């Protein structure tokens, strides 16, 4: 803290308070205290009497499953939501934030999961947005001063960003550092990070941990929202677990096992047992041969992928989001035309086939984005039940849709897949995300397909329904359907897949039996490294990527085998 005296005006307040050594924290020194926060939305209590005590200079993890109310709680602290009950205490003072402006003024900064950056503007413009220093009687922005202040901040916290670069050109990790700088520029003492690792590569995650360490060393307080056990135990000094909008308790990661944490999160012990009999594969149903895809900006995002899926086989794709899996899937399902290579389906070259033809040929697809693609939000479930089949013989006769048959079909999906509320006349938009997903999965699985392409089939779905969807996937496999599974839940792809392709920057690092890979090896492959190349890197991935599953931890697969691949 020796350089705190030279800080710019925005940091002087922090300098005055900044004498606290992280090592000699007193329990009474709370940076943030949320006391009995209650926040309701129409039809749901997002936070129910939640308490949170965050010590100054610490990293505090807020752990919980999706929908546990973590983000809502932090939006309350950041002034985006006004709570119906409870107190917000910052630096020992009770506060009431009507807008983020108030929270910013109180020294709170938030780094949202979806970055709040304007892609077309430069780093400096983004960092100063809303806080621009002015010159010429306020008639112009003092850009020199912004650049100087950003440089000072970078020096101080060891960041390396170019203030003149356009945000859209930066890597995700760099954008995240811009977000952190933006908060610091505004004089934040408390930084809230919402799922900060979700979009990062494992290396970038390591970089983030270093940044957090540097920040707390200089007296900043970090609140870290996550649903990943490994991250919470690795990075946090304390962990508060939320479940169904309630706080389950605050624990010290040192004295708690991951199994216990998982139980706190989920409420009952999770044992993900999706192992099935070895598959009996048949003919090749889908093959991709040297597929190359360029995105809208003409950047090559899929670089020569080969794959082959046989009937009765589940082929999994693991990888950090944004490594080309989305574009590959779109090329296979017909939403995108590959720039090179061929795609063969049931023995026919379908590279130039339209989406329509591929659906008719027996391709089912659970899309990644259910709000935009999978469901027509203003339509009811009856109308959504025929999406994709609106011209198939089953429901349409010479251009006319048989709505009675469609209604029966939709009701069947609703019943079989336990969609709630069980009302076919409900608009898709009125359903919760998990129920929307169940309806899509049901519609696609019941298409009597030869191939199911399922991307994140259980995203946002509760545990019970997840198990059901997994069982149905395995049944389809048993029936001889070929399945291409993409999921960011590593335990899901690992346990369900018969073969697993690890994708990195548009190429498969490896295609193998998932049982031959340890989590460490998988993590390295996802980061673009082959395990043999860098054997000593595995320590850094301890616990990382284990997802929400606590049951996976002790099954003895964690020792590196070294000779796979």
């Amino acid at each position: 803290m020796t350089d705190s005296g030279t800080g710019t005006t925005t940091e002087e307040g922090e300098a005055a308070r900044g004498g606290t050594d992280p090592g000699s924290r007193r329990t009474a020194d709370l940076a943030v205290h949320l006391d009995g926060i209650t926040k309701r939305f129409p039809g749901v209590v997002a936070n129910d009497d939640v308490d949170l005590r965050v010590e100054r200079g610490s990293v505090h993890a807020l752990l919980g499953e999706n929908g546990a109310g973590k983000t809502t709680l932090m939006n309350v602290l950041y002034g985006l939501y006004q709570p119906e009950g409870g107190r917000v205490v910052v630096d020992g003072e009770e506060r009431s934030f009507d807008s983020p402006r108030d929270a910013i003024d109180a020294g709170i900064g938030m780094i949202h999961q979806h970055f709040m950056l304007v892609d077309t503007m430069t780093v400096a413009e983004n960092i100063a947005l809303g806080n621009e220093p002015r010159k010429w009687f306020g008639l112009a922005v003092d850009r020199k001063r912004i650049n100087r202040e950003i440089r000072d901040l970078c020096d101080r916290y060891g960041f390396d960003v170019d203030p003149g670069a356009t945000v859209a050109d930066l890597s995700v990790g760099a954008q995240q550092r811009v977000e952190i700088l933006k908060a610091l520029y505004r004089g934040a003492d408390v930084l809230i990070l919402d799922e900060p690792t979700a979009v990062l590569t494992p290396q970038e995650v390591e970089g983030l941990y270093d940044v957090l360490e540097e920040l707390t060393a200089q007296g900043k307080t970090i609140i870290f929202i996550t649903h990943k056990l490994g991250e919470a135990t690795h990075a946090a000094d304390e962990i508060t677990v939320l479940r169904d909008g309630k706080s389950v308790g605050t624990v010290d990661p040192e004295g708690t096992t991951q199994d216990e944490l998982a139980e706190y999160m989920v409420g009952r012990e999770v044992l993900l047992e999706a192992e099935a009999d070895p598959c009996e594969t048949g003919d090749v149903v889908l093959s991709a041969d040297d597929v190359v895809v360029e995105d809208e900006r003409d950047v090559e995002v899929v670089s020569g992928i080969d794959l082959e899926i046989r009937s009765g086989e589940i082929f999994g794709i693991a990888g950090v989001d944004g490594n080309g899996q989305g574009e590959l899937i779109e090329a296979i399902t017909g939403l995108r035309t590959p720039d090179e290579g061929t795609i063969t389906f049931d023995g026919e070259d379908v590279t130039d086939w339209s989406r329509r033809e591929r659906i008719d040929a027996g391709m089912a697809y659970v899309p990644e984005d259910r709000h935009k693609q999978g469901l027509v939000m203003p339509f009811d479930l009856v109308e959504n039940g025929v999406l994709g089949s609106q011209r198939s013989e089953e429901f349409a006769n010479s251009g006319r849709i048989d709505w009675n048959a469609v209604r029966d079909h939709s009701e069947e999906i609703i019943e079989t897949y336990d969609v709630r509320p069980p009302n076919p006349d409900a608009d898709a938009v009125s359903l919760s995300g998990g129920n929307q997903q169940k309806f899509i999965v049901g519609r696609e699985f019941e298409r009597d397909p030869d191939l199911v392409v399922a991307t994140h089939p259980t995203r946002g779905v509760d545990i019970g329904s997840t198990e059901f969807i997994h069982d149905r996937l395995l049944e389809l496999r048993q029936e001889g359907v070929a399945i291409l599974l993409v999921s960011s839940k590593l335990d899901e792809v690992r346990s369900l897949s018969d073969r697993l392709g690890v994708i990195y920057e548009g190429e498969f690092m490896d295609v193998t039996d998932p049982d031959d890979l340890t989590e460490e090896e998988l993590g390295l492959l996802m980061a673009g490294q082959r395990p043999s190349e860098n054997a000593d890197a595995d320590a850094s991935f301890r616990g990382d990527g284990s997802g929400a599953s606590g049951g996976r931890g002790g099954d003895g697969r964690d020792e590196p085998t070294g000779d796979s691949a």
Partner: protein
Amino acid sequence: MPMRDRLPIPESGYMQAVVGGGLVATVLFLALASPSTHTATLRLAVPIALAAIGGIFAEKSGVINIGIEGLLIVSAFTGVVVTFRLGSGESTLLISHHWWGLLAGVLVSTLFALVFAVVCIEFKADQIIAGLAVWLIALGLAPFVSRIVFESPNTATVGTFDNVTVPVLSELPLVGYLLFDTPPQVWIMLISAVLGWYLLSRTSFGRWVVASGENPKALDTAGVDVRKVRYAAVLLSGVFAGLGGAGFALGQLGTFAGGGETDIGGRGFIAIATYLFANYHPIGALAGSFLFAGLDAIQVRLQAAGYAVPTELIRTIPYVTVIIVLVFVGKTRLPEAAGENYESGED
């Protein structure tokens, strides 16, 4: 600091090509067309350029103001009516009634813009439909009021602004008659373009406008009220369009025909094509407006010259050009959040 930060020079190859082509066309136009066509071009550019500059602010902030045509109509009409009522050729408080007419035109246009802003921002109306409504209301209101005041859909003639002539400078070749012996609305247009560019690229307000159109949530979480920024931007579009409409009517037409498509005749829509063409650059929009105004001036000349080509067909040239331009600028990226209503985290 890179050069492009300091000077209004576009950075993309596409825009450089457009600018280059524009320069060649300008030289040819200046060399081949007559001085009267040059000045006509400059004056005909006024409503297009100013409406485009206004439209840039609204659309950059995320509100597509397709009703800009309506703003041109009401301001042009109001300018003429108020000047007529006060008595044209006279002055009050030492200021010519034409200037009071211009002021009134700007006020009414801004008032319309305010209604549009309330409807879009407060009541979350579909911006395109609300914009169409503004246009259609103006299209009905101008002849309605005109019939009450003049008992005809067309107004009486009030005459135009006097040219502002700078003694010595007006003797210079080309720039002399273009800039220093010219009606005031031309200067209003030129100054507005520079002012618009400055506001948008140099002030914090300009940055907020851009952020409000690209990622309103980012602006909101940075503590700036998105609604206020959008209100300001839409009102600004009313001010600029008002200057364009009233300046055109009082500086060029001297009267206003409210029947059919009115004297504005789609110039507000041409302005939209112009700023898309110019990729939301105010000075680029000024240059683009010269293209359409030049075509307009040429078609007027062709008609006057009495060539065998039917006048009706010649008259479509600017409109066809708009379509061609749109086909080529189809790739112009609209602000990410343009057309979307923004709701803060909680109402």
